[in-house]
């Protein structure tokens, strides 16, 4: 099937070459980081995780959201999603690959990465996160590829793949729950130390992932002969709508507990993010854009007329993707470190090299996604013909 990725029109090759160029730039800058160390980033003694770990966290959510197309099809026999499960699974593959790369570029000693396997540490959440992410990657590669191959041969998928599919369903939320546990079990970080962290991760994941899937489906329909389907897009839209509403609610639950209890260790982080402390407030405008944007997205998506119109739906989905990214890919990690354990403010902002390495990893993800989608869609087109 892979040969399908090697035949394409000019637009396809243009995209591939553009992505490779961005990957190349990111890679060269990564080599520089490898040489001189992480000092080329904006991270510091106080904000010791930054953009890389934040992207990782956001993308685990995107990866987990594949379950939102797999579950209705396999557990509820919702036939319409049969057309697009492959899109969800391949999106998960590219997202998990980006997750692994973001962890890798964040390591101070990447050559020692296999120490995690050499000295398995059951009490470290990071060890478990590595396990669940890798298994999830494997599950999606195997399931996606096998089912697609069967579809090409106009045969039912082999029997052995069914148990793997059922396993992948609970496995998807697990990857994001374990990722939330990286943060929510740390005693000294009031911003993260809350049981709502995992539910918030899931709600924002199941809003942003399907939103991205809708945009991808619309793009696919526009540029290829394969139509993911109007009903499919509309069902996904409902999932996005309710998940973004739940996400706003979960956030407000946390705000209530934090501000009604008035416990400073929990309040200071929110104050920094949304109002700024002592003149430090780099993230304030973005955090408001994120929160207000999510509320606006919730309102417009809940109105049937707007949701049914695919143009306005696309705008709503873009809003969901951007606002959840600001929330998780920017505010969540930085906000947890500010103020620091000494109640002092050290601000964080990614540097240009850090941003370019980040962009390189994203390009890598979209490169993998383009190739996998090219294969999947070519086969779908073949079946149509």
């Amino acid at each position, binding site marked *: 099937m892979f040969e399908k990725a090697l035949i394409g029109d000019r637009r396809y090759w243009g995209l591939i070459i553009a992505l490779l160029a961005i990957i190349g730039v990111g890679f060269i800058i990564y080599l520089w980081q490898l040489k001189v160390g992480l000092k080329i980033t904006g991270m510091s003694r106080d904000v010791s995780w930054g953009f890389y770990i934040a992207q990782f966290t956001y993308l685990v959510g995107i990866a987990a959201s594949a379950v939102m197309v797999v579950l209705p099809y396999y557990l509820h026999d919702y036939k319409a999603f049969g057309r697009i499960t492959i899109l969800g699974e391949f999106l998960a593959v590219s997202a998990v690959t980006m997750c692994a790369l973001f962890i890798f570029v964040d390591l101070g000693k990447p050559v020692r990465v296999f120490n995690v396997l050499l000295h398995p540490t059951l009490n470290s959440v990071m060890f478990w996160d590595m396990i669940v992410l890798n298994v999830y990657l494997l599950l999606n590669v195997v399931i996606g590829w096998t089912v697609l191959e069967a579809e090409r041969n106009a045969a039912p998928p082999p029997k052995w793949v069914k148990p793997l599919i059922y396993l992948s369903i609970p496995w998807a939320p697990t990857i994001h729950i374990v990722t939330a546990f990286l943060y929510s079990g740390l005693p000294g970080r009031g911003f993260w130390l809350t049981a709502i962290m995992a539910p918030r991760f899931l709600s924002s994941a199941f809003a942003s992932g399907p939103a991205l899937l809708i945009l991808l489906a619309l793009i696919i329909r526009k540029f290829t002969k394969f139509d993911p389907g109007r009903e499919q897009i509309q069902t996904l839209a409902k999932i996005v709508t309710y998940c973004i509403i739940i996400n706003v609610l979960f956030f407000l639950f946390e705000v209530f507990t934090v501000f009604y209890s008035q416990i400073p*260790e929990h309040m200071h982080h929110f104050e920094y993010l949304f109002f700024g402390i002592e003149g430090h407030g780099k993230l304030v405008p973005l955090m408001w854009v994120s929160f207000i944007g999510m509320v606006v997205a919730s309102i417009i998506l809940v109105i049937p007329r707007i949701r049914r119109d695919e143009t306005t739906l696309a705008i709503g989905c873009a809003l969901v993707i951007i606002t959840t990214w600001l929330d998780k890919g920017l505010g969540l990690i930085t906000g947890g470190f500010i103020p620091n354990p000494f109640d002092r403010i050290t601000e964080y902002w990614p540097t240009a090299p850090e941003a370019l390495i980040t962009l390189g990893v994203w390009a890598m993800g979209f490169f993998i996604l383009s190739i996998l989608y090219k294969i999947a869609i070519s086969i779908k087109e073949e079946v149509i013909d």
Partner: protein
Amino acid sequence: MDINRREFLKITGASTIVGLLGGWKAVELLAPGELEAKYLPKTEALTAKRWAMVVDNKKMDEKTAKKCIEICHRIHNVPDIGDPKREIKWIWLEPFENAFPGQRQEHTAERLNGKPLIVLCNHCDNPPCVRVCPTKATWKREDGIVMMDQHRCIGCRFCMAACPFGSRSFNWGDPRPFIKKKNPEYPTREKGVVEKCDFCAERLAKGLIPACVEVSNGALVFGDLADPKSDVRKTLRTHYSIRRKPHLGTNPQVYYIV
């Protein structure tokens, strides 16, 4: 490849000799004696069930504190990077309200207001940094010291996120150019690993108390918390002491008399 009988015998003969030599070496290595003695704690080593420190702030003045910091950073090859965002520090001064953020109040005793306190790794009895490390590069020794293996650390910085005391530093770049005078007795670090105070484990092994304690004129008390006759126990019996963020359950083993 074809070999005749003669060649075959030559090769096997040579291999046997090499094997015998190697085997003999292994016997030598495994036999009790010199090697074992080299890796067992020396008799002069200071040992304890639970090392702990008391910072007696009534005896600590800023000059003494600076001496403690200077000697620690000098003997442990701690670089002086100068940039507060990237600095490495094992022991340093923090104003009272920053070292004890929960204790901030409008009418703190004047002698405490803004007064710098010495801070270092608390060598917690229930250390969250150890709990989160994915490679066991940081671990708690039986005597309570929270150690760091800079050769195993992958630089993921999970321990820095987990430490509620900001005790850990990361080498954002190569630290070596920033070490004024290298102490050949102690290793320097590479870029990309985390480091922190180790209660002078290398000095304890030689029978010496931690360097900061030695130069503190009695303002830092160090000893075995499990021994009722130790100096730390005596000091804690006769003075009211506080610890940083005890409500987090990490059970810090650095006590403050303020």
